[in-house]
């Protein structure tokens, strides 16, 4: 089995694990009910739908993605199964990526499907008007809405990466739950409060605001949606920070979280301390 094959084996195992656990289905159905309910209430077109769903998605995706990821690696570490896994030809990178991608497949289905179904409600609800965006007659195209859906998927992927990192750092279920709660609070309100406090305290000016927005995944997501979807049809200037900075901010959270997960999933043992040598070879020198 190639390295890719081993990674796929881990991906398959994670997908099967999620599919067989009712708790994940309950989380997914709860999220879908809220999104579809809001979609039903929304009116006027795709951009109004985006605006109506932006804050709910920003609030709901962190707990949903965290629920799917915060115990992912812990399922193997709590019962010491990971010690058996470590004796197989499976690298830390392949293992963590496999766990992440398997969970990501499930999270994307859960997050994206209701958003796409909500889009189907738009023609039926068109004409009811929206108090938020009223300046564009077409009220946006489906392509703008799909941009929002893609950005939501990226946001979910970033939060899931952070949750998988939590699952590698935590050594017990209780610690993982506590860290997951902290993660959600930080992502949902903590970072925004930090931005407001920094502005209010004069720690950063307008010129530093774009960087602060980019540093928080939720703010960066919101900025990207406002900047690339809403501002296209908005009558007034939308302050959304820098799209590039926001994209880089999300990328940094994604890569940084996965890097933390890879480094902490299990400790390395240096070659001096432990080494496999050929039985026919002479004793290696120090």
């Amino acid at each position, binding site marked *: 089995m190639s390295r890719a094959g081993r990674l796929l084996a881990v991906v398959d195992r994670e997908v099967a694990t999620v599919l067989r656990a009712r708790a994940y289905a309950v989380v997914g159905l709860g999220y879908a009910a809220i999104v579809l309910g809001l979609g039903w209430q929304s009116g006027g077109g795709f951009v109004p739908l985006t605006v109506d769903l932006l804050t709910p998605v920003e609030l709901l995706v962190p707990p949903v993605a965290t629920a799917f990821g915060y115990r992912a690696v812990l399922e193997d570490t709590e019962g*010491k199964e990971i010690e058996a896994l470590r004796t197989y030809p499976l690298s830390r990178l392949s293992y963590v990526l496999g766990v992440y991608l398997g969970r990501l497949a499930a999270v994307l289905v859960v997050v994206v499907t209701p958003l796409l179904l909500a889009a189907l409600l738009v023609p039926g609800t068109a004409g009811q008007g929206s108090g938020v965006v009223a300046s564009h007659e077409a009220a946006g195209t489906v392509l703008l809405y799909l941009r929002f859906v893609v950005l939501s998927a990226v946001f979910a992927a970033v939060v899931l990466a952070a949750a998988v990192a939590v699952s590698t750092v935590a050594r017990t279920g209780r610690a993982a739950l506590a860290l997951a709660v902290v993660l959600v609070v930080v992502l949902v309100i903590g970072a925004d409060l930090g931005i407001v406090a920094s502005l209010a305290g004069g720690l950063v000016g307008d010129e530093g605001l774009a960087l602060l927005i980019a540093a928080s995944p939720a703010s960066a997501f919101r900025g990207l949606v406002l900047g690339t979807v809403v501002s296209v049809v908005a009558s007034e200037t939308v302050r959304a920070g820098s799209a590039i900075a926001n994209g880089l901010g999300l990328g940094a959270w994604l890569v940084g979280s996965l890097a933390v997960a890879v480094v902490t999933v299990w400790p390395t043992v240096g070659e001096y*301390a432990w080494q496999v040598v050929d039985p026919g070879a002479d004793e290696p020198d120090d």
Partner: protein
Amino acid sequence: MTAESAEDVDSADEAAPTPATDPRKSGPPIVTAEGIAHAFDGVTVLEGIDLDVDARSMTALVGPNGSGKTTLLRILAGLLAPADGRVRVRATGQRPLGFLPQEPTFRGRFTVGETIDFYAELLETSVDRDAVLERVGLDVVTGRRVDALSGGMLRLLGLAVAMLGDPPLVVLDEPASGLDPKIRAHVFEAIGRLADEDRAVLLATHHLQGAELADRVLVLDRGTVVADGPPEELLAATGADSLEAAFLESVSEGLAVQAGTEGSE
């Protein structure tokens, strides 16, 4: 074999000559550990352990709770970096060793067969799942979910996972702890079959029933090897009439020293 920190029982070699067919004499050791030392939070767990494990042999590591057995096994298996010392494993192939953790668990909603299939997919060669399960006696529960297995069956599944890919060394941490005598006997029977299959088996156990199967017994006490040799040599060296009595004899001196030290403090 070396165990420099151990009470030397090798002098009994003359009394109990090693058979010419002893597989332990058939090549270089599969594991060589030199100067292994480890501590947790400043508390010394292992100290200056030198150890060779011969290929195609079964070595039992026995000792009281907290003697450092699990830590030593994890270091020998490459799962834990020692604070000092080094380990060399002489092996070729995709999987130099297999490891059975203490009280292993596997994904509960997977069946026994699916669990083996997953691990088989991590290997570079194909695996005959049914044959592997038959070797440990789990072929009759291939379709049973892991969370419906008994403790003994879980150990057997752990054994199957440890031996997939035919590693030349299998390290087993307390494979029979917490099991009733009947299941324990079954687990040791499966381990005995493993040892017969051209590989080295290194196991830590509280149950001297398992140690009796071994070619060699290492007695670990407070982080050092206090006795080392074939079971019959341990009996001869301690003058005990059972392995359990020999074990108690080996560690009692240490306990007496410990008690004296505590009393003087």
